[in-house]
């Protein structure tokens, strides 16, 4: 783009010797008109309008209304008094810390596995996407049935191997929570693995070839080439994954329904629980309480992505 350099020009303006003034009367100094571009600008506004309307009607208004519903301090007191709330906060935090790290580390490691070009691995990577591509209900319900203490596949296998009954997976708070985390990982791991694979493929081959010549072991190659290149992606993915995990309703709801005895609720499912108990203001208050966790992460992601 032509941008003139600042500073006084050394040479003066030179008038063309053959400057003709044969043009009929034309208006003198004409400021650059905005009018000429207005048809393009107005079309821009027209084409932007559908989304703006959608946003205003289905985001701004609901959010505003929701915040208004959450305005009573009494709601928050009630929440603080409710042991279910405290429990779900703890569950949520546990979920975040354990499930996400578990998931991201596996995504990173599996991405190394899946970049292999063997035919059977390629086929496997195609199948690997299935958990993410198929809807939650059938699959999570399927897992729920697998975990049924009497006739579920898991306990059947345990019985056959050890002649003992397997645990009642979904009836113990910590086991159930762990299972919910596993379900979450099962569902979301393929997506993050795909992201990691894309990140790995962006690393130039020559770096590995040079390292190989220099005599680096596999681990050293990971430490000095792969990890530095993937570090930012890994961090960003982890943050984004935290946001989505906070919002994972299906994994808990469809597996445990929040039970046993409301002990496995997380913030995402808790709101619905209150809604079903017809305590809308508590539902909204729960969501507001979740915001201090969500918003800093969102802010981080916004800064990264919007230039």
């Amino acid at each position, binding site marked *: 783009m*032509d941008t003139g*350099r600042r500073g006084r020009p050394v040479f003066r303006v030179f008038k063309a010797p053959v400057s003709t003034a044969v043009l009929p009367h*034309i*208006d003198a100094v004409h400021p650059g*008109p905005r009018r*000429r571009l207005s048809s393009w600008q107005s079309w821009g506004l027209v084409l932007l309008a559908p989304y703006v309307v959608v946003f205003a009607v289905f985001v701004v208004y609901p959010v505003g209304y929701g915040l208004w519903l959450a305005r009573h301090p009494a709601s928050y007191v009630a929440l603080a008094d409710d042991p279910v709330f405290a429990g779900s906060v703890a569950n949520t935090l546990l979920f975040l810390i354990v499930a996400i790290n578990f998931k991201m580390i596996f995504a990173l490691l599996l991405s190394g596995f899946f970049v292999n070009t063997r035919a059977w691995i390629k086929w496997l990577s195609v199948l690997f996407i299935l958990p993410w591509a198929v809807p939650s209900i059938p699959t999570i319900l399927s897992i729920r049935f697998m975990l049924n203490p009497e006739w579920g596949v898991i306990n059947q296998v345990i019985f056959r191997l050890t002649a003992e009954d397997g645990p009642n997976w979904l009836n113990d708070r910590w086991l159930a929570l762990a299972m919910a985390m596993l379900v979450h990982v099962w569902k979301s791991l393929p997506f993050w693995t795909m992201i990691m694979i894309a990140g790995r493929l962006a690393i130039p081959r020559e770096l590995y070839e040079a390292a190989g010549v220099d005599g680096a072991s596999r681990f050293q190659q990971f430490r000095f080439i792969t990890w530095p290149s993937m570090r930012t992606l890994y961090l960003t993915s982890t943050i984004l994954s935290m946001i989505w995990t906070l919002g994972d309703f299906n994994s808990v709801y469809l597996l445990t329904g929040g039970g046993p005895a409301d002990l496995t609720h997380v913030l995402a499912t808790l709101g619905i629980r209150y809604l079903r108990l017809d305590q809308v203001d508590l539902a909204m208050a729960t969501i507001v309480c979740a915001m201090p966790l969500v918003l800093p992460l969102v802010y981080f992601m916004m800064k990264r992505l919007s230039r």
Partner: protein
Amino acid sequence: MASVSFQNIEKAFGATKVIHGISFDIRDGEFMVLVGPSGCGKSTLLRMLAGLEEISAGTIAIDGRAVNDVDSKDRDIAMVFQSYALYPHMSVRDNMGFSLRLRKAPKPEIDARVARAAQILNLEPYLERYPRELSGGQRQRVAMGRAIVRDPKVFLFDEPLSNLDAKLRVQMRSEIKALHQRLKTTTVYVTHDQIEAMTMADRIVVMHDGIVEQIGTPLELYDRPENLFVAQFIGSPAMNIVQGTLRRTNGTAHVETPDGIRWPLGPGVGADGQPVSYGVRPDHLELAANQPHTVPAEVVVVEPTGSETELVVRIGDAQMIVETHGRPKLAPGDRVTFLVEPGNVHLFDQQTGQRLSA
């Protein structure tokens, strides 16, 4: 009649002013080249003419009609972009006929005009191909074909040859020139390459830092540059310049440089003691035996190119380029003398850079 007129054009991007008041006219049918180093504002000026940039101040007129408020599509112009800007999803034929299709012209007319343009540019075998299947030169021709089909009042070219390799560039230069001679449409052509400017233009506008340095025919700019910038920009290899002081005594004159060399000069120009820039083109230094109007030199490098020989020589403290015909028997370290005809000397005021004319 399709003249173009720029009157007091100014352009600012935000607070940064890039064009500081430019005025000149282009005659109907003229091939006008805007040339200058990167950042001088030539492309910006062209884009203002095209209607792709707003005009901060001033008036642009096409055929006597002010077009400041006129949308690009109504200015009756066509533009060839540096990167061709061909529509990748359309065939060559559709690319060329696109503007007519937008105007809902009848199909027979579109076909006829596309065929004519294809014939002029030798694109007939490629009409059904897609841009990705074409070479750079072919794509450039399609871009020109698209412009020709429009049959506009003015052709605009924005550095169209920059993306081509050297050999292709030479070929396309003459093709564009031949096209202009055939169609006789007013053309405004932007380039940073002064050789393109010299070979193609009817007249050249030399631009620098948002102002016009000089306007003239190629030979006018070559023989009589009005300032130091133009003198060094036009001509390859560039003009040799030394800084010195004018000495005028008893009707004779010379320029004295700090290293003691006396540079030959004709009578009449400048005042004694005036600091000047002394310029002489490489092909105006002739090997000659000791005579008046000569300077002593030492050969540094000899570069034969076959028909000519380029020499890098040392004259006093200055290093200069000399172009001689044939193959003089010279070797590095030789001491020789060069004749400078006073008529071939270009003298500029050292401070302002303006030419000192008789």
